[in-house]
């Protein structure tokens, strides 16, 4: 009997150990080992600065729980590139070729609806950038001391500039009109707080409120970035991946141009030009292959293996062009279009690439760095050439036509070999010349759709449109009253946020 009890006790001990071998905390209180717990982080100035890096990274790509967004400056397979090449695709700068797999036909031919996937991604991407910037702005002051004040300025100033430029990019697509002081036109919500909650339902601001917020952020950024601890962009590199003071001036210049505040636009452009003079012709070509920083004010940085902006229109390794430059801008002869072979932009932007089913120029300036064809080219968001054109336009529209023509000639002289300065241009002819130069300078850099939107509000596609041997696209004109000038607010957003108002016509 005794041995039986002993055996039972041993058995109980064995089973007891088996039951108690793991503690409750060990099992249930598991923490991620490969990511940061956002309940308690960022918890230092270093981590705040790392979140700022995350905000920049989101200009490139954003990993959301359900999908990855490549809709800002990077591209998917025939999609994305929302603020890099899409405004050219949606305008008369590029035409769809027969090599297309029609992945962005819905955008190119203005067929988008509130439920179009690409519209949702284009709405989401800038707000993901803003969210990261807002985390920085929420936490940077917590770790600011007298000793690191200048570092804090550097971080905070960039975060404000990032927040401003991302909002402005949303505004460019989703606002029906750009009028500075309109209180009836709807802009987009201006978000200054990172708040995860289903009850967070921001409302769209009107244009005036929107611009006020935008310029307030830019002014604050300008002040902060004038007083920093270290250079934001290293001088030694052929790339300027961060927004520094020149970047803030450039954003201001572009925004004031849209707002038609000519004097402010002229001042901001001048400030930017003073910090970054125009590049020589040899330096200019190197800006697109990361050989020379040239006149880059701010570029989105792409590394090998990261998908740059090109794949919306051109696959450099396979040399497949879904879209090609309109022959009115440049053609394979180099003699007919706006950009001719004597222009540094011709060889920098284009190459002749033929296939069995489509021929002509490819817009291949984003083929890769150096001699690579991996599509990991940087995207130049702001460069001095645009600053000259902004200043020229602002001057031309504010009775300073002589100075305007001077700016135009200075830019052309920098780009065109043997350029003879134009004289005597004024009035509409001057404005047309500036607009044409914008088209030449900024093709494939995300401007044409917006430039037409803020000026003529008419798109008339050129000779390729409707010719099925050349292009499958059938949509050739967009009139001034078309609803498509403003992208629709995505259906999911309208559904989730009752305070958001849909754009007219959708």
């Amino acid at each position: 009997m005794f041995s039986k009890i002993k055996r039972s006790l041993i058995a109980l001990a064995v089973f007891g150990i088996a039951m108690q071998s793991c503690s409750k905390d060990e099992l249930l209180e598991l923490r991620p080992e490969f990511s940061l717990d956002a309940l308690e982080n960022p918890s230092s100035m270093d981590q705040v600065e790392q979140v700022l890096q995350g905000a920049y990274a989101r200009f490139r790509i954003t990993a959301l729980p359900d999908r990855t967004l490549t809709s800002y400056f990077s591209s998917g397979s025939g999609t994305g590139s929302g603020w890099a090449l899409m405004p050219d695709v949606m305008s008369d700068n590029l035409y769809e070729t027969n090599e297309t797999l029609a992945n962005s036909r819905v955008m190119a031919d203005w067929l988008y609806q509130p439920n179009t996937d690409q519209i949702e991604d284009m709405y989401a991407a800038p707000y993901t950038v803003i969210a990261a910037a807002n985390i920085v702005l929420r936490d940077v002051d917590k770790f600011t001391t007298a000793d690191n004040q200048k570092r804090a300025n550097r971080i905070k100033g960039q975060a404000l500039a990032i927040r401003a430029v991302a909002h402005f990019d949303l505004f460019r697509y989703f606002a029906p009109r750009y009028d500075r002081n309109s209180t009836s036109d709807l802009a987009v919500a201006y978000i200054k707080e990172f708040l995860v909650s289903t009850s967070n339902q921001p409302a769209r601001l009107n244009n005036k409120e929107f611009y006020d917020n935008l310029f307030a952020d830019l002014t604050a950024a300008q002040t902060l970035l004038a007083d920093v601890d270290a250079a934001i962009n290293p001088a030694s590199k052929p790339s300027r991946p961060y927004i520094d003071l020149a970047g803030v001036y450039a954003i201001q210049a572009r925004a004031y141009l849209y707002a038609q505040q000519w004097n402010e636009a002229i001042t901001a452009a001048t400030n930017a030009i003073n910090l970054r003079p125009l590049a020589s012709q040899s330096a200019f070509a190197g800006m697109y292959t990361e050989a020379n920083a040239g006149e880059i004010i701010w570029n989105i940085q792409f590394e090998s293996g990261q998908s740059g902006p090109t794949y919306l229109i051109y696959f450099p390794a396979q040399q497949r062009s879904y879209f090609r430059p309109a022959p009115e801008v440049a053609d394979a002869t180099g003699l007919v279009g706006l950009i001719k072979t004597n222009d540094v932009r011709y060889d920098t932007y284009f190459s002749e690439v033929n296939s069995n089913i489509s021929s002509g120029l490819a817009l291949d300036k984003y083929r890769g760095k150096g001699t690579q064809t991996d599509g990991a080219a940087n995207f130049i968001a702001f460069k001095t050439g645009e600053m000259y054109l902004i200043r020229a336009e602002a001057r031309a529209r504010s009775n300073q036509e002589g100075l305007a023509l001077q700016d135009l000639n200075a830019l052309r002289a920098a780009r065109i070999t043997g350029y003879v300065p134009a004289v005597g241009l004024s009035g509409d002819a001057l404005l047309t010349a500036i607009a044409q130069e914008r088209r030449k300078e900024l093709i494939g850099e995300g401007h044409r759709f917006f430039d037409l939107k803020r000026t003529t509000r008419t798109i008339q596609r050129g000779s390729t449109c409707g010719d099925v041997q050349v292009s499958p696209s059938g949509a050739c004109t967009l009139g001034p009253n078309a609803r498509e000038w403003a992208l629709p607010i995505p259906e999911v957003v309208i559904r989730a946020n009752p305070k958001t108002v849909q754009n007219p016509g959708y």
Partner: protein
Amino acid sequence: MRRLKLLLSTGLLFCVQFLWAQVQVTGRVTDQKDGTPIAGVTVTLKNAQTSTITNAEGSFSISAPANGTLVFSSVGYQSAERPVSSVMNVALTAGETAMTEVVVTGYTNIQRRKFAAAITSVNSTEIRKQPFGSFDQALQGQASGVSVVANSGQPGANAVVRIRGNGSINGSNIPLYIMDGIEISAADFATLNQGDFERVEILKDAVATGMYGSRGANGVIVISTRKGRSGQIQLNYDAQVGFSDLPKDRLELMNSSQKIDYELRRGNPYGWSTAEADSLRNVNFSWRDALFQTGVTHQHQLSASGGSQTSRFYASLSYMNQEGIVKTTGLKRYTARVNVDNTIKSWRFGLNVQGGFSKISRTAEGETYTNQPLNAIRWANPYERDIDPRTGTWQQTGFAPTPTSPRAGQGTLTSGQPNPAMELFLNYNWTNQIKGIATSYLEFHFPFLQGLYARTNWGIDYGQNELAEFSSPEVSTGISRQGALSRSMNRTFRYTGTTSLNYKQNFGDHEIEGGLFTEVVKSDYRTFGFTGYGFTNGFTNETGITAGSATNSNYIPVVNGNGRQNSLLSYFTILNYGYSGKYYVTLVGRRDGSSRFGVNRRFANFGSVGVTWNVLQENFMKNATAFNELRVRASYGTNGNQLTPIGDYPIPILGRATYGGVTGWQPTQPGNLDYTWETNKTANLGLDFGFFGRRLTGTVDFYDRRTTNLFYSRPVDYAGSGFGEIPGNFGTLRNRGVELMLRGDVFRSRDFSWSIQGNVTYNQNRVMDLPEDSIPTSTTILAEGFPVNSLFLVRYAGVNPATGNAQYYARDGKITEVFNTDDKIILGTSDAPWYGGISTTVNYKGFDLSAQVNFFLNRVMYNNDLNNVTNPGYYWDNLSVHLLNEWRQPGDITNVPRPTSSGGNAYQDETTRFMQDASFWRLRNVTLGYNFPVSILSRAKVRSARIFVQGQNWWTATKFESFDPEMSGTSLVGAQYPALIQTTVGLSIGF
């Protein structure tokens, strides 16, 4: 154990007692399927107390009156009755009579008649014999309420198994798999040998799955591996050899001459000269023949079983080599298993260990990329070839070099379509999988109280995958970085430990059986890998990688790594009470704590109750002699689903980001500290019956499964936080249905028998409640009152004969040429509400012939594969023959609109033109076998021998235009690797 011995000797005693007045019967009992002898069969003289037990060779000897009847019964087999003769060789059929049948739930073994649960035991011989690389494929049509759909025919690919419908919209619907008491990954079946399976039980209702608490919502599949049988060591060798083929292709494409004519009609885009066109018309290259093959399958298994009364073992070695029907694809598998069970005094302990290694070579599928060979065979023009006969090398007619890119057009055909043969033969993609499953148990029977014992069961499930994916520098995707090799390793280590105190005793009419349990499950996953570039030295393995630096940054390798953990801590009880053999009540209560849920919602309680009424035990049924069995079961209870769509950590998370070579952080998960389980409430009402000496038996179950607190991410405005949705628990989903299983012995005699059995399930899936109703996503919609996977399209109304424009039905039924997404309507679901299987078996002497037909009815799917070859914009590549009927001139009556988009005739794909009836009937299996008689075998000193030939999927009836309609999901996206048509010859010998 001791009591059993006593019974045995009593039996022998009776034998001796009746010896003088009887006929001496000798004989042998074998398994009807493979002719292996069955040891331990109880042979009883009917209406008497005489009995004996077969020895290790299956032989027995008994004295019986010449006009008597002997009853042969054994656990795991259907009992058989035979009139007495002097030599009796009896073959028993696997499967049990309901009266003594025991079901294994993973935690308990309980007699079916005492348990209210809806549990289907699948005939393990069916699973063992079918030559699938992944055993779950063999479950198709075997059990009511269980939908098994092969999404892929790649050797080793898992099936999509759904038990009683989809209960989760966003979470996982994968059942829980339990092997020998521990949880195993529902993924690595390619490295499990189903030849080792003894039993497979499918737990469906609340009282069965409730035992698994927060893991039970999607049903549970309980696998028990083979146990050793005491007696002399028995050796078995099983082999199968055969071949697999491509099913009929129902998506018909143009041949060379049709395609050339079509191109010429569309304006000759390539500018073929008349001579070129004439020459190309005659090419008619078969891309299918170039890429597909007849695959050879080999399968061998050697197993041994034996032991003493106190120690038994089972051991096996197996090898499988299955070539896929796409060249270069296949599965090679090696497994070994040892199962040992011991009894020493009051202790019992045992160990089950399986180790396996497999190598799976595959090709990409299920996507729409042009470089996937399985898309490319559809899209490559039939006048192009894999090899250019002019050069003898890969055909690369897309070549148009320029000074800036001398390698342009490389790897592509004229249209820019990558050459599928290059993509298949120059690239590779394989996984080496190591799988180890080990479980051990220790049981102590307390000597001072009969029926009380403690048990602890611990096991590990280890799965490791080593992956390689290579893109050659010569193919279209490899050009940009001179080839790419991605290598990675991942492993999942999970342990499960269950400890319990159990008690089982009868007190007069009262039966009590129950246990208190505690359990831990912890899983740990790690992965790392790299991708290298720059394959310039001719090697295609790691040696070929050029390590990049600043000067050739394009070759800088990419490295990565990740990991996660989750665990579960549970306390539960299972209690069973019976009265007088008539009434049984089962109570299950469980409390689970999971690391996967919000800190505020770590623990949850689940419970269920089941009641059984054995009607035949009632006095008023005494005279109902037609009945052999009549039982009513009812159960109700809750269980949960913890397979969330948001991963293992429900907290807000900052994930790594990089920009310009600098690491940063970005918010990657919104988190929700109140995140919790999906809860199922399932009611089940069942009836089991048997008539006419059990010649007709069956089971009917009615169920209503309601899932609440669905994992549902609430959409929010991206403006607020950059997130488009925040995870939460909202909404209700219902699955309700009827399951019927019937088995009938049409004819039964000594030499000839014929039986038919079948099961059919009707499952109605309905979304009951959503935070936001009717959310469309391109071709589907989530709407209250409709199934989860409902198609949502504009109805196609043919072609206007006057203009050639496509026409559509507006919502109000009017015909219009204007396509408008507002005209979409809800049309049907891809999850077949009706499905099942019907099988029949004929036995004549040693021969047996069986056939099984499975069906999935009333389902529709979107055919994106058809869409991609119907879009006239893709006329540079090959197209469907439907386009030969294109509208050409006013007055043409056709269903295919003109190809041009001008004048409001843009090609529209979200229409019913591409929705097709995806119902199908298929002859799943046919087997013809022969068991050699003992008389021949004994001369050859062989214990048993069986040969058979079987076929899989020989015949399929469907209207769906593709290789195969057997797919899950709402759409055939593209690059389909169809289920195989297989024929194998098998041999099974026992020594």
